[in-house]
Each structure stands twice: as structure tokens, then as C-alpha cells.
């Protein structure tokens, strides 16, 4: 009986001590921890292997686990014009970790640079425009789609326009781990020509190739984020 009382007392004391510690942590917790932000983004995709720029839009939310660490969960939809002969649609759904090595204060006027890196799932579809097939003389179109994964890393910065709203700009290089969607520009004889060839009857042929190198591109993202909740309050 004494043993049981002793154990019960020690458990109660431990719980009390843990409670005290938790209270202390809560009091010392930086204001940034637990913040939840919701935002919109515009993304420009540059320097893919065919060098066509694309424009995208999307959204993200951010959950901040510590003062110098933030997480971003995002969705992007990008469309790229391929030389006026076709288009590439890309959707990214993924997450990133943001590390603030210097200033990490959340207040109006703060400038907080960060290192960002993460992972995403990537859907891509490349379609040619309608064209007249030089062999069959019929109207044709071809498209290829694929899912892949990708990793991305880069640098960025937040600028707090108010205590609740920040404007973020980041540049990340994204490498795709998957097959490459390759496009060839053909002329009206069905012969391959340069991508910048402006032949009137040129058309696009799309195919999926096993990639020997990591296909990648640079993503420049401008986003607006608003703090809407604090999970620790």
C-alpha cells in the first residue's frame, strides 16, 4: 500500500513538474511559433531545357513550428507557350521548409531572408496545337502527360507590410525525378527544325523519354500571405 502511495505521489509530482515546465515554455515561446498563414502566389517558370517562360498562379498555407523555421504547403498551376506551336501545363503540389538564418521577427517592416527547400509531386501535360499532318493530310494533334516527383531548393525573403501580412519573393531551382517530356519542331516536310524557326506550317511532336539527366527549371515566386490563426493560443 505504501508503495502504491509512493508511486502515485511521484507520478503526481512528475506531472506537476511537467506542467510547470510546459507553462514556462508557453510563457517563453516566441510570438512567431504556431502561426498559420494563408496566401496566394504568382509563379514564373524559367530556363527549362527548351527555355520557354511560363506563368502560373496558386496558393499556399504556412505553419510555423519554431521561430527560425517555417513550413509551406503549396499548389501551383503553370502554363507555358511553346513557340506558338503548343503548350505545357504543369501542376505542382508539395511542401517546403523555410529556414531563417538571420532576422526572423514577425512585425511590420521586418525583412526576413530565408533558405527554402522541399519536395513536390508534379503533373505535366504537353500538347501540340492542331496541325495538318504532312503524310496523311488530316488535322492532327498530339499530347503526352506524366506524373513525377521533384525536389526544389533556393533562397527567398519575406517583407512584412503589416504585422499580419507579408509579401514573399523566392527563387528556387526544381529538379524533376522522372521521364522527360521532349518536344521536336517539324516543318511541313516532316523534317526537324530549330525551335526558333518561324516556318508557317511548322508543328510540334511530343514524346516521353527516359531522362538521362535531371530535368529542371527555375521558379520565381511572388506571394502574399496573411496570418489568420495561431495554433498555440
Amino acid at each position: 500500500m505504501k508503495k502504491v502511495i509512493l508511486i502515485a505521489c511521484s507520478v503526481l509530482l512528475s506531472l506537476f513538474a511537467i506542467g510547470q515546465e510546459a507553462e514556462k515554455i508557453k510563457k517563453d515561446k516566441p510570438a512567431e511559433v504556431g502561426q498559420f498563414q494563408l496566401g496566394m502566389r504568382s509563379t514564373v517558370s524559367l530556363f527549362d531545357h527548351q527555355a520557354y517562360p511560363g506563368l502560373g498562379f496558386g496558393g499556399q498555407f504556412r505553419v510555423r513550428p519554431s521561430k527560425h523555421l517555417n513550413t509551406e504547403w503549396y499548389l501551383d498551376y503553370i502554363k507555358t507557350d511553346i513557340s506558338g506551336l503548343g503548350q505545357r501545363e504543369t501542376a505542382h503540389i508539395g511542401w517546403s521548409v523555410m529556414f531563417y538564418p538571420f532576422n526572423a521577427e514577425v512585425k511590420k517592416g521586418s525583412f526576413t531572408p530565408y533558405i527554402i527547400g522541399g519536395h513536390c509531386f508534379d503533373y505535366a501535360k504537353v500538347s501540340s496545337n492542331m496541325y495538318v499532318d504532312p503524310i496523311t493530310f488530316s488535322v492532327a494533334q498530339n499530347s503526352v502527360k506524366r506524373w513525377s516527383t521533384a525536389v526544389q531548393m533556393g533562397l527567398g525573403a519575406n517583407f512584412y507590410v503589416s504585422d499580419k501580412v507579408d509579401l514573399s519573393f523566392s527563387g528556387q531551382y526544381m529538379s524533376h525525378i522522372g521521364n522527360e517530356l521532349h518536344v521536336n519542331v517539324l516543318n511541313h516536310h516532316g523534317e526537324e527544325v530549330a525551335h526558333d524557326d518561324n516556318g508557317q506550317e511548322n508543328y510540334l511532336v511530343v514524346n516521353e523519354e527516359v531522362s538521362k539527366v535531371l530535368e529542371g527549371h527555375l521558379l520565381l515566386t511572388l506571394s502574399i500571405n496573411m496570418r489568420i490563426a495561431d495554433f498555440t493560443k
Partner: protein
Amino acid sequence: MKSALILLFCVVSFCSNAQFEKRYVDYGLLRFQGNLAFGAPLTRSATNMYFAGDVDYYLKGNVSVNGGIFYFVNEYGGQDVFKQNHSLFAGFSYHFPTNNHLDPYVGIQPGVSLSRLNSESLLFIDVVAMSSFEASINPLFSVHAGMNFFANKYFNVFVNVKYQRGKHFSDIPAQSIEELKITLGLGYMLWARKGYCKFRKPEVD
């Protein structure tokens, strides 16, 4: 475009005479409007007309979050390129501090368009048999600037100029939807703070 600029000048001149001691704009202000808007495509000669509506909610620190919609009505003086050219935006504005009822601002709004080419346009006479002329959703990027004048506790007069960039994609060559859009007219507002939702501005913060 010229007449809009003249009107903007008149509004600014009129408003600059109305000096007040205290800034009217504050957090909790909910401003909304529904008006006609006009667009000037930057890659071809035409004028687009839209039904436009937007909502703007003011936060602390001279910032507001906002969203807007442009419903395409018709194109005038051009080649009737689009049958549909609607767009939806969401973003934020920074409001420059003033000491009166004027409210100049600038902002950024990412967005999307729902657009569809007009198969009857002379521009597509060569490709009319090749395309299905389907509607598509396309990313947009926009920046805007404007001015509100809060005339009384119910109404405001405003002018907003928006530059948008994007392309309409389909199964024929992409068409630019780069455009300068101007909206002006009468807006409405009320004050919506925690536990307070009235036309009258709350007296205590």
C-alpha cells in the same frame, strides 16, 4: 482611356479640396462595389467591357486584402477575338496614409481567366476548321493602383487601374490577354470589426 484620365484628374482635384483632420480609413472597413469596367488590350486595338465587382477588407497597418471579378460583356472596335474573357483575382493593397477621406493605394493580385475564343472572328478564318474553340482556364498576374474617396458613411467614389498579364491557351496559337482595365464609379462600405457591424465608423479602437 483619355476620358478616364481626365475623370481621374477631376476626382482628385475635387477630393483634394475636401480636407479633414483625421484619416477616415481604418481597420475593419469593408468596401465593396459593382460597376462597369473597361479594358484596353495592349496587343491589339479594341475596347472590352466588363461587369466588375470587388470586395476590400482593411486590416491594421495600412493593408487590405481583396478579391475581384470581371465578367466579360463584349468587345468593341476590334475583331471580336473572345467569346468569353472573364477573370477572377485575389490579393492585397497597400494604402498610403492620408489625413482626410482620400485613400490612394497600390496592390498586387494573382488571378485566373476563364476565356474562350470566338470562332466567328475574322482573325481565326484560317484555323476555324481545325480548332474546337474550347474554353480554358489560364493564369494571370496583375498589379493595380487607384484612389477611393469616402464621401459619407454609406458611399465612396473610386477609380481603379489594373494591368494584367497572361495568355489564352487552346489548340491554336496562344492569344495574349494582356490588358489595362479601368473601373470607376460608386462603391459602398460598412464597418465590420469583432462584435461590431454598422455603417457608422466605430469611435473607439
